[in-house]
């Protein structure tokens, strides 16, 4: 006899889904390896096309870092709902007694951890390639900016991944839909990173930080509410 059940709350269900997604990614490493290889290759290409006599490393590196974050993140976002289509695992999620919002938040949380994992790889590579001398304080500041930026990008990207996944051109459609929404995030994050890399205090980038926080609040809420409408009913 199965013991009585108490349907899980939104956060508990979201964590269960995120943990499942991360376990699948740890087993296959398909998206993370692709993103890590992309990170190294992109950093190397930018390095070899860089003229250090024309642009200083501290001016170029923040832009490189955020281009890498943006496109490597898309690799993970593409797989987010794509992995659910194999043998219609998504149906198993949708018939479970959990809210649709929990499904979205679980997917978004897994994507956030994925993107942050890519950033853990990308930041040292860019610091190394461009010979930046950053103290722990600067690294912590960049990490904070990265978390704020990743949160907004993942919220938007997860929603568009859910919308694009059932189309024939999902891998093309996701960047076309998501990149315009990434522009304010990447701009704010890159500007804040420029200040940090130039050795100035993060307090000088408060306006950019506020923009990132506002973007996160608006788009996490809006995308969570919008997700149920992307499901065929």
């Amino acid at each position: 006899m199965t013991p009585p059940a108490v349907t899980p709350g939104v956060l508990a269900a979201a964590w269960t889904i995120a943990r499942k997604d991360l376990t699948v990614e740890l087993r296959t490493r398909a998206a993370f390896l692709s993103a890590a290889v992309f990170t190294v290759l992109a950093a190397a290409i930018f390095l070899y096309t860089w003229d250090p006599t024309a642009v200083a490393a501290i001016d170029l590196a923040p832009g490189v870092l955020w281009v890498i974050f943006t496109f490597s993140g898309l690799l993970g976002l593409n797989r987010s709902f794509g992995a659910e289509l194999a043998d219609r695992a998504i149906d198993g999620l949708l018939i479970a007694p959990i809210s649709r919002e929990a499904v979205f938040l679980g997917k978004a949380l897994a994507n956030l951890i994925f993107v942050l994992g890519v950033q853990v790889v990308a930041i040292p590579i860019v610091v190394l390639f461009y010979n930046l001398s950053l103290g722990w304080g600067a690294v912590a500041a960049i990490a904070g900016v990265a978390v704020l930026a990743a949160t907004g990008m993942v919220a938007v990207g997860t929603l568009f991944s859910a919308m694009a996944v059932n189309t024939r051109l999902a891998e093309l459609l996701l960047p076309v839909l998501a990149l315009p929404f990434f522009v304010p995030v990447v701009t704010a994050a890159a500007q804040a990173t420029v200040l940090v890399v130039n050795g100035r205090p993060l307090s000088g980038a408060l306006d950019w930080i506020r923009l990132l926080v506002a973007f996160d609040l608006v788009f996490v809420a809006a995308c969570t509410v919008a997700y149920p409408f992307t499901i065929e009913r």
Partner: protein
Amino acid sequence: MHSVPTPPVATIETRGLIRRFDRREALSGVDLTVAPGDCLAVFGPNGAGKTTLLRVLAGLLDPSGGTASVAGVSLPGGVSARAQVGLISHHTMLYPALTARENVEFAARLHGLASPRVSAESALARLGVMDRADSPVRVLSRGLQQRVSIARAFVHAPRVVLLDEPYTGLDAVGAAALSDALAELKSDGAALILVTHHLDEGLVLATYVAVMREGRFVRYDRRDAIDAATFSAEYRALVGAVA
């Protein structure tokens, strides 16, 4: 026009249920009633609307018209309706990279079971796949995957069980394990709807039988009121007429 026998208490009930996809009507006014411990076997050719009926009752699709209720909850019923339902479909709904145990345990967690691991192991043992519990699903044969999928669907002891060609891909051992599990669920009071092309397997479990064509039931009888051989001949004539 068929008349729907009405058992005393309905676990699944639809009246005039309609589901449209754009202009096409996949369900065109379906009436059915399934009481606790009963099994409705639905037969019909491809495209008759059988799978759509199950997807509506499972909460994956909203009705376009008419009424439907599952375990006393009107559809679309959200979380409270879905908590009562177990669905087995053409697809296994499993994650190939996870083990059999992890897949079933994941479903148990989503249903909020108190001991997800214990419940998962119990469900796997019931389907005779406990010895492969730690194998990734991707290395299992199609038949074993189907058994794990059934364990996933049954792990929360659903009151409403929706089965879409559940015997597909199962060997004799798997089919027997599934039949035993379904019989146990029936005797525990679950209401079952079994959709299949195969008359033999459907008639064994059925309390009621229905034939579906073009989105509606064209026959609906108590199982004990029909003769299997006669029904089989009539059904083949009906399906042949469609083709």
